[in-house]
């Protein structure tokens, strides 16, 4: 089951993920040994991303959204399933292949404070990928290219000579984006790129990412927990819960006609910044907390918190199936 909507079946996807599972072995249960403990971070996740498209990947902490993004980039071990980039399988790419692939696929990190080396000047940070991949021979040659990249992301031309501490969070995130763009990639995984930023700055970075997308035809996997921001930047949205994609649909379908009970609960939990509207909203309660990834429940993983769970939900895990054109959900009852 792939996650493509009907209207895009004609062109081939840039990235295709099929039944991806990522599990981490975290040691034995007791001091003297015993059963091995396996964290089921991602289970049977499938989706496509087309050229020039943004797929929003939304979920709460621990839902496996970042792990999925890292697995696509070859930075997390793939336990099962396949990942294709431009039709070529890259699921078990080795160190050198991952480095070659990083010309085409790049990562923008969440925390612009931790992801820039405080001892490197901005010019060195942005030029590093160019040097590593032999695009330029030395930093002097890179200067012109770095200046172009800094201008592209809206930083002043003299920024290159300064260190990260001289910049605010929003500007640092621009540096992170400039670095990701240095090798002219086609695909960028943005792992919560605006979560650490203030509201007034957040919009600046989101708009920049949209401008760059239309300018270069980039594809994004936009990982976030903020449903309101995701609505602005994404073409399609996948909702993750406890390692599964529970719903995958065109942007507006997720918000207007959410199918999965978890999507509905998630949407109703986000407060709207308008007091009369917020008072009138009905919250769909889902008591409790996400399951322990060491011991996921049988059947559907949302079953323990779902308001409409039945015996079927406890017995077997549902798979993503079509609900209407452009919308898929993994649920027995919706």
């Amino acid at each position: 089951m792939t996650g493509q909507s009907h209207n895009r079946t004609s062109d081939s996807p840039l990235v295709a993920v099929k039944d991806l599972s990522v599990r981490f072995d975290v040691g034995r249960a007791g001091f003297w040994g015993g059963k091995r403990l396996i964290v089921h971070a991602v289970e049977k996740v499938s989706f496509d991303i087309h050229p020039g498209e943004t797929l929003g990947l939304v979920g709460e902490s621990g839902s496996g959204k970042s792990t999925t993004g890292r697995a696509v980039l070859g930075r997390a071990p793939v336990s099962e399933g396949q990942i294709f980039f431009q039709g070529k399988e890259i699921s078990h790419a080795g160190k050198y292949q991952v480095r070659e692939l990083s010309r085409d696929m790049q990562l923008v990190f969440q925390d612009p404070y931790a992801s820039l080396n405080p001892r490197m000047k901005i010019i060195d940070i942005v030029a590093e990928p160019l040097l590593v991949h032999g695009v330029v021979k030395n930093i002097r040659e890179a200067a012109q290219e770095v200046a172009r990249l800094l201008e592209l992301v809206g930083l002043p031309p003299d920024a290159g000579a300064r260190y990260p501490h001289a910049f605010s969070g929003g500007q640092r995130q621009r540096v992170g984006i400039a670095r990701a763009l240095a090798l002219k990639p086609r695909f960028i995984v943005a792992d919560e790129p605006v979560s650490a930023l203030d509201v007034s700055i957040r919009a600046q970075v989101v708009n920049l990412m949209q401008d760059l997308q239309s300018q270069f035809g980039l594809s994004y996997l936009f990982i976030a927990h903020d449903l309101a921001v995701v609505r602005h930047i994404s073409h399609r949205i996948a909702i993750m819960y406890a390692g599964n994609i529970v719903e995958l649909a065109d942007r507006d379908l997720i918000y207007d006609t959410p199918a999965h009970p978890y999507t509905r609960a998630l949407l109703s939990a986000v407060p709207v910044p308008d007091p009369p509207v917020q008072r009138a909203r009905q919250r769909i309660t889902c008591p409790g907390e996400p399951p322990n990834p060491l011991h996921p429940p049988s059947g559907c993983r949302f079953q323990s918190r779902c308001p409409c769970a039945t015996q079927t939900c406890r017995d077997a895990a549902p798979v993503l199936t079509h609900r209407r054109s452009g919308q898929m959900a993994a649920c027995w009852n919706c």
Partner: protein
Amino acid sequence: MTASPNIPLLEARDLVVNFYTRGGVVQASRGVSFQVDYGQTLGIVGESGSGKSVAVQAVMGLIFTPGHIEGGDILFKGRSLLDPAGRKFVRQVRGKEIAMIFQDPMTSLNPVFTIGTQITEVLRHHMGMTKDQARHRAMELLDMVDINAPEKRLKQYPHEMSGGMRQRVMIAMALACEPQLIIADEPTTALDVTIQAQILELLADLQQRLNVSVILITHDLGVVAQLCHRVAVMYAGRIVEVGDADQVFASPVHPYTKGLIRATPRLDVVTERMVSIDGVPPDLISPPKGCAFFPRCDQAKKACSRMQALIELGDDRHVSCWCAAKENGR
């Protein structure tokens, strides 16, 4: 509640807090005034570095060197909390009548003591309870914040609980001494949305049931919309607009408030482009002389280079802006 209805429960007047750092004097709070009435929820919103946390830390006496409270006063039921003569009164008030809930439940609980020890400590210290009484009361409190099997939970350590559960424990501790005012500093920022919704509902429910006043510090306008009666918007160490939450959201006056509301993406509204506020907040070591929002404001004029005090617009609404002053004929 014996105080006369005219005196607010808590009032901050022209609070000035400076931090003496190596880089210079950071003017974190530059004359902040607000008040909270009985049974009311006041939301203080602002971006990081706007001084919202510093303002309430001053109330709780949590400003430590290099920070100093250098001006203004804080009155609880009309009595000063900053007056050195009233030390004993202050000790009774802080922690007992004013309780605080911190942002990060992972770090604000002590990892080496059980939940039970930490809750009963408060009760024995402030309420003079015996060990048994305190334990009994602690179970009641955990029950009040919807933690099931409280007896078992009392014996657990913070690391055995999830983030949402820990925040519930923090709320239980804050409620322990039946406070009249709870200060919640970004209580749900570290939590996931579905858990945030649970905690906000709990806070709203407790606020109504126990009739406590709440000061809620947040950067999320949605949280304010859900919980607060009144809202104060802070920018660069000053309150720029304060008023009834419904009114401020429906018809913001200050350009920063307007910008903030426009820039906050909404689930129920689709726009092709997000609205941003250009520029960055000012450096509080050398804040601009006049209105701090002046460099980013699209309605800026000459007068804005002079400081504007909060002016009243009626209905207990105040705004600090020259443009609004002019529209009001002042």
